[in-house]
């Protein structure tokens, strides 16, 4: 049956598909093709590749010289090695056979090329746009880094600690600052009990209902000194819109899921900012 895909009605596009099957697209044409494609064009592309390959076979003369013996031996050795080390790959491919008609479709190749080019460009721009003093920031104290963050962002959240479900025996003050745009934040504590890291550690949790019902692990930390302590937040996942921050006491190394039996501090974000 004749396919009724979009490209049948777009002569320019089908010519680009033919050029791709012939391996003769220049960079500009490759970009145009990628931008113009729809899923329904895959059949056209497949058919044109098949036509080109069939033509290749039609034009191929019988080869009077067979493949050199040593080349054949190398190829056979590689095949045996491959088949003995990748039996499961072959089986998996059989299962999906029919879903894809080409070894690597033009769309995949173009997408990979474009993705690679974009990545290189992005890395280049990132490298060029990095602030000159980026390395210097690493040397900043946590207090300076916290102050810088709050001075530089306009989406900073700042909330004070309050007593959690199992408060400390002593009063603890301080706050949490967080920037969604930077995905960066700091905990500040004053009067926080010093912990023994060999027996227990503090762990931060970020409650973000927009992301998940489960709190996000914000990192394990210790309080090793008196006075003001500032700890960088180490969010393990992207934070979308935090509703609260909680500190629990866990075994050394922290836990994946807290039972929240010891939750001394909580900071609720009353007016979450995007």
């Amino acid at each position: 049956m004749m396919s009724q895909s979009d490209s049948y009605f777009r002569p320019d596009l089908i010519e680009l598909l033919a050029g791709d099957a012939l391996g003769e697209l220049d960079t500009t044409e490759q970009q145009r093709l990628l931008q113009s494609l729809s899923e329904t064009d895959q059949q056209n592309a497949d058919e044109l590749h098949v036509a080109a390959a069939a033509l290749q076979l039609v034009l191929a003369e019988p080869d009077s010289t067979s493949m050199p013996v040593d080349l054949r031996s190398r190829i056979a050795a590689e095949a045996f090695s491959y088949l003995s080390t990748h039996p499961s790959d072959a089986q998996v491919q059989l299962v999906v056979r029919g879903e894809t008609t080409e070894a690597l479709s033009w769309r995949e190749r173009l997408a990979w090329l474009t993705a690679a080019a974009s990545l290189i460009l992005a890395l280049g721009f990132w490298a060029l746009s990095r602030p000159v003093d980026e390395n210097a920031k690493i040397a900043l104290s946590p207090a300076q880094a916290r102050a810088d963050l709050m001075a530089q962002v306009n989406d900073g959240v700042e909330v004070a600690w309050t007593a959690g479900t199992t408060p400390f025996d002593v009063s603890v003050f301080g706050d949490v600052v967080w920037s969604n745009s930077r995905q960066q934040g700091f905990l500040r504590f004053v009067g926080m009990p010093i912990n023994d890291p060999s027996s227990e550690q503090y762990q931060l949790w970020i409650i973000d209902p927009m992301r998940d019902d489960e709190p996000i692990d914000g990192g394990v930390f210790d309080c090793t000194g008196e006075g003001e302590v500032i700890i960088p937040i180490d969010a393990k996942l992207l934070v979308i819109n935090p509703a609260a921050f909680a500190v629990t006491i866990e075994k050394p190394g922290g836990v994946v899921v807290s039972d929240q039996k010891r939750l001394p501090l909580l900071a609720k974000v009353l007016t979450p900012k995007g």
Partner: protein
Amino acid sequence: MNDSILQRIAAGDQLAVDDCLNRYGGLVWSLAKRWIANPADAEDLTQEIFVELWQQAGRFDPAVAGEATFVAMIARRRLIDRVRKDSRRPTADAIVSDLVDKSTEKENQAAEWADEIAKAKRCLTRLSNEQQEILHLVVHYGVSHAAISERLSMPLGTVKSYARRGLIQLRDCMKLSADMPAMSNASASFQTLNTNGSR
């Protein structure tokens, strides 16, 4: 169960490797030699093509293309990638003498390969002489459009158009020939298309 060679390879049958090399080794080797001037490079490329063939064997679907066509598709992709990377392609001058004998009637292995090859052979004769000549240079020898343009003193856009529209017409003919045993309608379609064949 009569699995094809590639299906046997995909299933991990090591005995199928010899069968594959017996049937397609000469084809791939001759393609590589024709496209790649340096024999050592042609050997490397032949090895690469077969490595990819082992890896992709599971994707072969006889409902989409014949086995030989699938092998040729893998080989063509590798060849195209290589010449793009190296920017070294055969020149039209180097092969012009061979074109004297570019008869589409020459005996080859197509008869024992898939049905689409027989269709392609029939359909090739329906294309204009210019389309046949240019597709022969592009597909068979891997000559670039620019080199063909220079050799035939033809504008690059015209070469491109002949090649691309020729392939599209070939594809359409192959489809029509699959859908309708009689080729008369296909022939009429080509005549119509060929009147707009250049730009």
